[in-house]
């Protein structure tokens, strides 16, 4: 268990025009679960590989447990990594796979057996110990890969998209199991994923990355309520936030087929701006009644997706597609013209130029301040 500190860490690949990772700053708490999330090519895996020592960082310093690990080879960093492809050793049994690192460190045989069996017990793979990886299912291989990491009792766990090769149901199960395992072992963990649901459900803090640059590092709720910019707002949350380009006049944001009144707080941050990006999450949009509402978006329903517990509809407002989440009992047909409404305090406002957030939403849920 250890604190990992990344200070101004950057990575320049030889011959590359721009930095793969730029000025990454993050200091973990002891035993924290950090998720690195972003679209492919955003530098999240590179960042993890730099912590592992599989890639050299070219700028800044990385400290693990207070020790600068620049130039330290991977095996001396006291970390364990779970690979996306699991990278199990195909010719070794599950037991040997898990025991391999301990054998290399010349642990006593009894000690190795105990550790392997304890880990197998925790992961529920004791009956599989004498099988070869090829005789295991995807989920079982995943557990073995985790087992190989935990027998080491390392200071830091690194997990590189460990669930992406599993089917949807298993992924949800393993997600919960990894979270439980982390709580049990309390080891500082870095977890890379491109799936924002995984990030939100697992991370204590989430670092959202784009094009090698960290956009925001914060708790899941803060990312949802107070995204740093348009990118984070759109990346976090499913279905994604709707964005409308609006003109501001007389405390009202308007555009083709929509008109949204701003409350006092939003009028204040809007200031003298004439244009704004308005962000509305699908779950904050409701079907409006017949009464003409000042707070409304009008358009034709293009897609209706009943999901059972709720229904998603896509409405064309002006030339923007807006997704709204409605109750399943509200009968809406494709081709209907509907009016949607949103509470004034659920509007996100972004600066048109810088794309930075002017104001987020306040859910009333008390959240621990971001460290």
């Amino acid at each position, binding site marked *: 268990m250890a604190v990992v500190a990344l200070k101004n860490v950057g990575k320049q690949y030889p011959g590359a025009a721009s930095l793969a990772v730029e000025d990454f700053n993050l200091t973990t708490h002891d035993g924290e679960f950090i998720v690195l999330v972003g679209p492919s090519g955003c530098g999240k895996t590179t960042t993890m590989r730099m912590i592992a020592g599989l890639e050299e960082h070219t700028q800044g310093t990385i400290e693990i447990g207070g020790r600068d690990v620049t130039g330290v080879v991977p*095996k001396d960093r006291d970390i364990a990594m779970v690979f996306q492809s699991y990278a199990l050793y*195909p*010719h070794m049994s599950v037991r040997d796979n898990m025991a391999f690192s301990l054998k*290399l460190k010349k642990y006593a045989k009894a000690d190795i057996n105990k550790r392997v069996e304890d880990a197998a017990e925790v992961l529920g793979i004791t009956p599989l110990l004498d099988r070869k990886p090829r005789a295991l299912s995807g989920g079982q291989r995943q557990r073995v890969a985790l087992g190989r990491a935990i027998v080491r009792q390392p200071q830091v766990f690194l997990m590189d998209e460990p669930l992406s090769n599993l089917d949807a149901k298993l992924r949800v199960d393993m997600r919960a199991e990894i979270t439980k395992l982390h709580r049990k072992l309390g080891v500082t963990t870095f977890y890379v994923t491109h799936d924002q649901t995984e990030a939100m459900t697992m991370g204590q803090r989430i670092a959202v990355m784009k094009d090698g640059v960290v956009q925001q590092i914060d708790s899941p709720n803060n990312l949802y309520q107070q995204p740093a910019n348009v990118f984070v707002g759109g990346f976090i949350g499913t279905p994604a936030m709707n964005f409308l380009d609006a003109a501001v006049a007389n405390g009202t944001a308007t555009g083709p087929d929509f008109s949204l009144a701003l409350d006092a707080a939003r009028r204040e941050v809007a200031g003298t701006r004439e244009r704004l990006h308005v962000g509305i999450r699908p779950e904050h949009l409701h079907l409006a009644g017949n009464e003409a509402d000042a707070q409304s978006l009008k358009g034709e329903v293009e897609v209706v997706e009943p999901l059972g517990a709720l229904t998603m509809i896509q409405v064309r407002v002006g030339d923007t597609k807006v997704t709204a989440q409605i109750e399943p009992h509200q009968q809406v047909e494709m081709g209907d013209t509907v009016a949607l409404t949103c509470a004034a305090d659920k509007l996100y406002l972004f600066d048109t130029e810088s794309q930075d957030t002017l104001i987020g939403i306040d859910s009333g849920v008390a959240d621990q301040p971001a460290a």
Partner: protein
Amino acid sequence: MPNDRDLLLASTITHDTETARAAARREKARRAPAKWLLAPAVIFLLVWMIVPLAMTGYYSFRNYNLMMPSITGWAGWTNYKILWGDPTFWSALGVTLLIVVVCLAVTVGLGLALALLFHRNFVGRGVARTLAVAPFFVMPVVTGLIWKNMLFHPAYGLLAWLFRTLGFEPIDWLAQFPLASIITMISWEWTPFAMLVLLTGLQSLPEDQLEAVRLDGANKWHEFRHIVIPHLGQVLYVVVMLESIFFLTSFAEIYTTTSGGPGTASTNLPYYIFQGTFVQYDIGVSSAAAIGAVILANIFAIFLIRFVAGNLNAGEAR
């Protein structure tokens, strides 16, 4: 009296059997031309493999010496007895095995070393790799002549020149170390093959396994011993099997250089059979020796390869 339900059931069953029969008919109709299309390949195999093998077996039990055409008829086990009592046959057998085993060791060892070298990135790798592979494209007869006249020759050879330049007496390699010379030539020819196949094997090794083992605390030797070698198991198996088959039948390199000599020092089984047939004209005894060679090849195919496969069981790991 059957009710409606039974009738319905019965008709379904008849219907089902009818579809099954139709399917069988279609299957049969599909298979008929397949037989004819396969026939040329099967006939080819019969003519070129089974027939010569059967004829060799037949001759090995006949009195059949071109120098003594009057003696014919069944020989019983005589040809085999002659063979059994011929010390040259046994020495040829020994030479054959020695060539196979030593050449295997040299080509696989050197091939692996070169494959590891060429797996790394360095300037001019493409050119160097092409040059390293070149010997494999030289015909065995040409290999023999190049080595005999340009490298091993005691007067004009490169090695002789090298020795004289350094102030030593030149060595007549083919006369003094005939077997070592032949093993050198064959290994020179076949190392590129081993290298190429092993290099392909190395290139198919997933990078993340090496990274995993590095994080697990392995040094270079551990990586090689616990990941690279097991991964190469299946490929090694192919190399050993193919090379064994070719080394067992080495002939051109011997024919063009030592002619099996001095004496019978470099006579292997193929060369022994050749001499029996085309020098002594004893078809019967040579056929018996050929059957011996077939048995030897099969022993190799079964035992050696099983042994290799058993030791490097990575084959079953994938």
